[in-house]
């Protein structure tokens, strides 16, 4: 479950110089210089566009059924073919981006915020506090995604809010570990000691002094996790924990059309799969270029 957790040594390198405006401009320039960033940004922009204006790109509605023309192969009138209820696959793939583009960032943000708070506490207090919370973090990390998914859906009902919470719960301990490692190094530095001597409260030191200095790894972690949020969302939807029909959704559409692959209706899953792949790769390109740009500084 520790996919893509970033190397701790980066934290130190990145920590310096946060907040200075010209450095930030420098960082942005470093980003734009990278081809991967531009490609990733383009892909992401494309799907954001689809999520907002997708409906106007096609004359077909993603919901409109036509029981007389089901399982039609791609053609001029239905670019991506039709599904088992005669719905236009192109319209469904385009519209399917909306759910993901809303839930993935929110889920990642939730996981990042909760994880950061936990990580700060663990890293700052160390000792028994760290030991106790670590056990819980470990226990949650050892909890299979399916279990969290089932429990979440069952307890809260199938909704986007549930998916956001489930993914938040899965991500928080991962992010907490990264943040904890960064804080462990940070807390030994002079500025933290100085704040302590000034008599600042622990809360103040954690969130006002340390937090801005560990923003770099948190930022990198956020973009990396965003890719995995998409990954996890489609997986959970495919396993049946997502929103049910008729909402167009990449994961649950694959689930409901997966059963007819062996009858040769490949178009009912292929385009959803391609859509997921492009979005995930796009986000990861962004994540990599942000990491590289931070490292450059």
């Amino acid at each position, binding site marked *: 479950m520790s996919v893509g957790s970033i190397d701790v040594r980066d934290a130190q390198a990145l920590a310096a110089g946060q907040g200075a405006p010209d450095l930030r401009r420098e960082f942005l320039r470093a980003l734009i210089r990278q081809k991967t960033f531009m490609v990733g940004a383009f892909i992401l922009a494309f799907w954001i566009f689809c999520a907002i204006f997708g409906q106007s790109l096609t004359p077909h509605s993603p*919901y*409109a*059924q036509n*029981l*007389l023309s*089901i*399982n039609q192969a791609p053609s001029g009138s239905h670019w991506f073919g039709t599904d*088992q*209820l*005669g719905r236009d696959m192109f319209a469904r793939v385009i519209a399917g981006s909306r759910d993901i583009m809303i839930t993935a960032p929110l889920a990642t943000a939730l996981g990042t915020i909760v994880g950061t708070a936990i990580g700060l506490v663990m890293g700052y207090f160390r000792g028994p506090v760290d030991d106790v919370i670590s056990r819980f973090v470990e226990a949650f990390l050892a909890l299979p995604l399916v279990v969290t998914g089932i429990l979440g*859906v*069952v307890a809260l*009902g*199938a909704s986007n809010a549930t998916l956001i919470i489930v993914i938040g719960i899965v991500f928080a301990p991962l992010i907490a570990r990264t943040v904890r490692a960064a804080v462990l190094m940070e807390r030994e530095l002079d500025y933290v000691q100085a704040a302590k001597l000034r008599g600042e409260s622990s809360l103040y030191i954690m969130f006002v002094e340390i937090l801005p200095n560990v923003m770099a790894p948190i930022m990198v972690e956020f973009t990396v996790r965003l890719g995995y949020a998409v990954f996890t969302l489609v997986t959970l939807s495919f396993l*049946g924990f997502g929103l*049910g*029909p*008729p909402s167009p959704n990449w994961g649950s559409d694959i689930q*409901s059309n*997966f*059963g*007819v692959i*062996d*009858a*040769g*209706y490949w178009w009912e899953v292929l385009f959803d799969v391609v859509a997921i792949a492009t979005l995930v790769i796009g986000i990861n390109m962004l994540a990599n270029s942000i990491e590289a740009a931070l490292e450059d500084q």
Partner: protein
Amino acid sequence: MGTDDRRLDALRAEHSELENHYIDELVAGRLDRRTFLRRGAVLGMSASAMGAILAACGGANKTGGAATKSGGATSTSSGPVTKGGTLKLALQTPAAAINPLTIADAGGLCLIAQTGEFLTLDNNIKTHLEPMLATKWTHNGDGTVWTFKLRSGVKFHNGKPMTADDVVYTFQQQADPKNASNALSTFQGVLKPDGVRKVDSETVAFHLEAANGSFPYIISSDNYNAIIVPKGTDFANWGKTMIGTGPFKFKSYAANQGAQFVANPSYWGGAPHLDGSSFTFYGSQQPQILALQGGTVDTIVQFVPSGAQAILSNAGQYSIIKLKSSNHRELSMRCDQAPFTDPRVRQAIAYSLDRPAMVQALLQGYGEVGNDNPFAPMFPSTNTSVPQRTQNIAKAKQLLKEAGHSSFTTTLFTEQYEEVPQLATVIQQSASKIGVKINLKVETQSNYYGKATFGNSDWLDGTMSLVDYGSRGVPNVFLESPLTTGGPWNAAHFKNKTYDNLVKQYVAAVDLQTQKQLAGKIERLLLDQTPLIIPYFIDGLTASTPKVHGLNPTSIAQIFLGGAYIST
């Protein structure tokens, strides 16, 4: 073809009043031969007696072989029977312990019927009731006491002879409210443990709580829990030996993996052709289809048309047994909640559906349209004179307007099961054409059913609720539990005294003419009231490679392999 009246009169003398009624119906041409065989069998007329009557009515009679088949070889015996070999079958994974009392799923009920046998067999291929461990049965005239004569010389797999004591034990346990028996829901209001009485060592009588004209179906293979086990059997441990009387004996069972059976050489019906059978369990349908295509298995015990395009569209390569069944979906609308308090609103939803298109798209044509009542075309008592409801958008809109609900929003709860979610979206789309906006709530089965009691279940509490009902041999349960006042599955919250009375009369009726007449009244009442919508009935499908013959599947996913063989 003439009627031999003298012979017929001689035969009449041997039969009861009711049986003679059927003979009259047959002679008058109001009963076709197959229905006569079915009804006669329910009343316990022997096959030879019925044959003699049919012969007296003239002409040679073809009986049986009524199952529709498509594709390669037929499954009934053709050519010389080949002995030996082990048949490999794909089966839905049994979801719980192999316990005849508690089993409730397709995989489990199929397994217990491999070694276990019933008093009577609802043979869905021949579409009539057949003797199994009971050879003859009669009732006391009004259908309140039914007496079964047991087959003699039947031995359990442990060598002990089967007697009335074993049958009494089996049914007393199955009908005991203190036991966790799944059959209780069938026996409710029909049979109590003390109603099962031994007459002599080969005769058992069932004293019913109320008259029941279909009782031989209620203890048949339809009631899948009711396999006859030795007296004193500990049901919880039955799965370790699976002692029954059937043509196959237990060899091994591994939960989630598979089960093996071997031929019983001392079977009362003669040793089976096969050396044995081997079932592999699959969690879903798709791998079963792939396994058949890949040659890993010879037979898929039961599959549904949705998602089975790969084998259904390859007719000729596989032999497919298609059984008419009463397996269906019910969309209930709460008659006690606005706007569905008005029957016109409920009718409007029903008129919005294009049923033939739904059968084609959702079932690949393997089904029959429903008429919003549980009388499936397969039941002999179904009254076909009641007109079929068809799509009529203008009329639906008109009805809504009259009711003062030209457009409204409501919620439909349903379960993730087979094609049900897709059916829900089709209903949603159809309703949108008449201005009704339906929000769908598709839930996992455990969420949807909840505690399965009123107030604790989206199934029973939802304003609109779409649920699946498995096939049964008689419509009694479909008529009672989901529709009568106080019925435990009355998701529509339908309360209608006239209806309750009609159903009571129907269940008690022992002759077909009365049943048919009452069925007509019930059908018309349900069309008028429309507490629920039944869009279609789904065929039961079994597939095998062409070299497999003599399979005898039922529409509730049992498969009897006593006559099965593999040709070389």
